[in-house]
């Protein structure tokens, strides 16, 4: 039965959420209007709070309705039909929720409701002006999923649209408007990955968190409180930096594990769209820290905090308006929201820039000139470097926007993104990394002491010497391994090492005083380690599947073309750099069995999600399924077993790179499998395989008349007909009483092992049936054609096909673990700083701002810094 109730309830909740957000924004505005900070008009405040709570309740109701629709497989709704399916486990149903644009907006809205409630609870003094901004943003976001037609203009795209209203022209809808599909079209299998369950919520929480400091800054400008907003906003900004940074790296890890472009970062516009605001947010945090400690950089903090939020809006516009078109592989599909997105972006740009310009002259500026011995100067330069890094990515990523804009005003433009994006971004971002590492080291040391020429050179000596020694050692090791190291790489290596060591020396000193002070240092060590990991894994990634021996039949440009893929025939061993590699068969993922299961053990049935076990499926001693059992399988993914053996050490391991049938992404999609060692990863993926969805091309059947004991050659393999025996009830045969069934028992001697082949001959009601048997390993199929009982002769039909093969690419990625461990350390550092700043903000009363330098009088500790 078509159930329209739940969708109507959901849609009504969206409308309530929208109206309540509008009322909340207006009444918060009225509550704060013409009042100094901390004082409000009580009656307006009551209405405002009430409507924000109502808004929150309505959002929860929207979320619940949408989840119920997905969870109960209500395919009469377009959202459930296009993003979910019957076979999806519950944890992936959560991912379907945000696979679509509407659901991801909803996720974002939901996080901002949570943050809004936290502000109402914890930041009472700022509630009215801050929440006016919050509710304003919620108003725009809920309008994106409103799905209402106003004056012939469609506002928003509702997730509760019925299939029949979406596909109005489809013939099956026209013949039966109450048609409900039995199954959905499923969640894109690429996203059926645990990272995709947690990565989007993390990222959207990060996006939502950038709103908090923005709202504080705007409230500060509005109320004329130019200085007091920094302290309550700083912990939120740190939280945002943590969550967004971790979210970006989760996405990077997912890409590394799942996609096959060969790394964790592809400079895709969608990735850049998050990277840019994160860099600016980190710069903004530094500006706010500078203000907290030295009463400088207040204007900078305003500009950066506001820019961060506007960049998040710009990112939203980029990824959701369809403007990227060909430029990105994974932006959302265009829902026709471009106009609404532009209005949203423009409204906040005008509001923020207008307020800033209006108040600019009133924002206090520090009169004191910073000298070379002020750590503040170097922190400030560091923040500037971060912004320049963001600026480069922004300028290039926006190329499709320039085209769209020029096209809009009637100028034809054919600009395209750089052909070699990696080279383009690297040549600037590498230097950003160099300066970030260097400045973070120097500034961290200077931050905690009174600086003059002597004290500075004293405290820089030890990390400096260690850095030079370490860098020299690494350079020697690199040369020992017969690798080149360019001057630029040497610079990055040295500065990143310095970043680690200088920050480490400071952290070690600080831990003795007070652990909570060392958050900044720990985060900086993390960043420097990430830089080292990127340098090693990207700069020295080594393709080990170089086709050195292969037959090259194209002679056109033999000199400078990299041939990065090798062909591996099934069960034949090939040499690849230092490894012996062989491809030994196709496997499936069977839920309930820990490792992959050989496809030859499974007999596929008409239901593509079920198979019959041909023999015992066991691993170790444990039997999971007996012959003839029905086994559930995940049919989209085929895993190709590839054995590696290191020729030097004799060490062996097995990888299962995957090919996935994925119609949404254009068909067949390869994912890598990665073997992780402490010092490097071996990353390999399939580049091409004979399409598993296509029927094989079998040769014409060749008949052989044999007696028991005869030997023949089958597809170049030696084979013996050992016996003719009654056929057992085996998988898929479906024997009934009265059937006569016999089978031939062949043994075929393959390269690595021998195979039993059992073609079956069945007589049922005088009709003859033949069930051929196939050895995929050998590209061989044998059928039992006829029996001549008088002469004891048996006729077998043999057909062959091309032997199975894969084309493989394998890459060695040195020291990539530095990147992941650096990420964790950075997150820990952010967390420590967050705890410290939150404690300060809650203390309420400002600590005295006098400071006692560490070196001069180490006994008198306690400054309110970093």
């Amino acid at each position, binding site marked *: *039965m078509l159930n329209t109730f739940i969708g109507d309830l959901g849609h009504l909740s969206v409308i309530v959420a929208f109206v309540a957000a509008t009322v909340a924004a207006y009444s918060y505005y009225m509550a704060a209007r013409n009042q100094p900070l901390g004082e409000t008009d009580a009656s307006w405040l009551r209405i405002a709070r009430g409507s924000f709570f109502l808004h929150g309740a309505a959002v929860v109701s929207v979320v619940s309705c949408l989840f119920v629709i997905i969870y109960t497989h209500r395919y009469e709704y377009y959202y459930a*039909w296009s993003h979910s399916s019957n076979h999806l486990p519950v944890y992936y149903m959560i991912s379907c929720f945000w696979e679509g644009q509407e659901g991801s907006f909803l996720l974002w809205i939901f996080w901002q409701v949570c943050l809004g409630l936290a502000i109402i609870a914890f930041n009472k003094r700022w509630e009215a002006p801050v929440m006016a901004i919050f509710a304003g943003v919620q108003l725009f976001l809920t309008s994106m999923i409103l799905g209402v037609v106003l004056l012939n203009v469609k506002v928003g795209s509702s997730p509760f649209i019925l*299939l029949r209203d979406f*596909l109005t022209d*489809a*013939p*099956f809808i026209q013949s039966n408007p*109450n*048609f*409900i*599909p*039995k*199954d959905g*079209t499923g969640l894109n299998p690429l996203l059926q990955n645990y990272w995709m369950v947690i990565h989007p919520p993390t990222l959207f929480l990060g996006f939502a968190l950038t709103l908090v400091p923005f709202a504080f800054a705007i409230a500060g400008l509005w109320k004329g409180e130019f200085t007091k907003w920094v302290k309550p906003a700083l912990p939120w900004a740190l939280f945002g930096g943590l969550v967004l940074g971790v979210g970006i790296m989760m996405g990077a890890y997912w890409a590394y594990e799942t996609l096959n472009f060969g790394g964790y970062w592809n400079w895709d516009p969608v990735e850049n769209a998050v990277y840019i605001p994160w860099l600016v947010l980190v710069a903004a945090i530094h500006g706010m820290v500078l203000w907290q400690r030295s009463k400088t950089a207040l204007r900078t903090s305003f500009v950066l905090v506001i820019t961060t939020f506007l960049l998040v809006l710009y990112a939203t516009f980029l990824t959701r308006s369809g403007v990227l078109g*060909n430029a990105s*592989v994974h932006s959302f599909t265009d829902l026709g929201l471009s106009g609404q997105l532009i209005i949203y972006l423009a409204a906040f740009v005008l509001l923020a820039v207008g307020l800033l310009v209006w108040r600019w002259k009133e924002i206090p500026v520090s009169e004191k*000139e910073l000298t070379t011995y002020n750590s503040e*100067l170097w922190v400030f*330069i560091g923040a*500037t470097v971060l912004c*320049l890094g963001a600026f*480069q990515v922004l*300028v*290039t990523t926006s*190329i499709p926007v320039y085209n769209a804009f020029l096209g809009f005003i009637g100028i034809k433009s*054919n*600009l*395209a*993104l*750089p*052909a*070699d994006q990696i*080279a*383009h971004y690297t*040549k*600037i971002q590498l230097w950003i990394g160099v300066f970030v590492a260097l400045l973070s080291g120097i500034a961290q040391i200077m931050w905690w002491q009174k600086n003059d020429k002597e004290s500075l050179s004293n405290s820089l000596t030890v990390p400096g010497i260690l850095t030079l020694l370490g860098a020299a050692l690494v350079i020697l090791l690199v040369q020992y391994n017969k690798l080149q190291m360019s001057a630029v790489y040497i610079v990055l290596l040295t500065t990143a090492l310095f970043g680690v060591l200088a920050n480490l020396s400071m952290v070690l000193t600080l831990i003795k005083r007070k652990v909570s002070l060392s958050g900044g240092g720990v985060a900086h060590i993390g960043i420097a380690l990430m830089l080292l990991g990127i340098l090693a894994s990207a700069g020295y990634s080594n393709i080990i599947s170089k*086709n050195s021996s*292969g*037959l*090259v*039949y*194209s002679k*056109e*440009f033999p000199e400078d073309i*990299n*041939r*990065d*893929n090798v*062909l591996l025939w099934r069960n034949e061993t090939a040499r690849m750099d230092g490894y012996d590699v062989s491809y030994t068969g196709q496997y499936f993922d069977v839920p309930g069995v820990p490792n992959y299961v050989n496809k030859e053990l499974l007999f596929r049935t008409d239901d593509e999600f079920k198979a019959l076990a041909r023999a015992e499926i066991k691993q170790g001693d444990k039997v999971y399924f007996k012959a003839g059992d029905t086994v559930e399988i995940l049919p989209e993914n085929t895993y190709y077993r590839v054995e590696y053996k290191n020729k030097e050490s004799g060490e062996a391991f097995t990888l299962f790179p995957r090919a996935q049938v994925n*119609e*949404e992404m*254009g*068909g*067949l*999609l*390869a994912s890598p499998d990665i073997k992780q060692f402490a010092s490097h990863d071996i990353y390999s993926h399939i580049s*091409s*395989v004979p399409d598993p969805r296509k029927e094989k091309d079998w040769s014409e059947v060749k008949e052989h008349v044999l007696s028991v004991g005869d030997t023949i050659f089958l597809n170049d393999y030696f084979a013996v007909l050992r016996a003719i025996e009654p056929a057992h009830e085996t998988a898929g045969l479906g024997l009934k009483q009265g059937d006569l069934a016999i089978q031939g028992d062949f043994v075929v001697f393959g390269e690595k092992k021998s195979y039993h082949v059992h073609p079956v001959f069945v007589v049922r009601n005088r009709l003859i049936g033949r069930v051929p048997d196939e050895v995929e390993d050998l590209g061989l199929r044998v059928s039992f054609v006829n029996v001549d009982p008088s002469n004891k002769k048996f006729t077998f039909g043999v057909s062959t096909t091309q032997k199975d*093969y894969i*084309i493989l690419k394998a890459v060695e990625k040195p020291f990539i673990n530095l990147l992941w461990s650096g990420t964790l350390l950075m997150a820990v550092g952010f967390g420590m700083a967050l705890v410290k700043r939150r404690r300060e903000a809650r203390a309420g009363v400002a600590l005295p701002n006098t400071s006692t330098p560490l070196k001069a009088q180490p006994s008198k500790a306690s400054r309110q810094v970093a």
Partner: protein
Amino acid sequence: MKKSHILAIAVIALAIGIIMSAAGDASVYVSFREARERAADGNLTKVHVVGRLPRDGRKNILGLEYNPTLDPNYFAFTLVDTNRIAQRVIYFNPKPQDFDKSEQVVITGAMRNDVFVADKILLKCPSKYVEKDIQGATASVN
């Protein structure tokens, strides 16, 4: 001059440098004719070309050449650009899976002698909704 002024000037200079570098590295969408002219002028910078694959009456793509057993890293095909100029393209990598299905192809690379050597292929597949309609229609009616 104050330090802040020096810093501001340095930042502006670097920002201009960054814009110049983006302008210098940005590629362009061109036709094959222009790609050939560029190559004839000795300009070997990589360009983007958008095109379609020529098909026969039965929708089979004409002129695909990929024989992995001979050389897995050699794939050649013919692309027809928006001005209907056909050009032989070589891609020194395995043939992308489901190349056959794609409607529109974007390649980056440059002309070398008489062939276009591509180093990147972007495929645009037919809208996923088209196939979904058919799937939905075959499902039974409740």
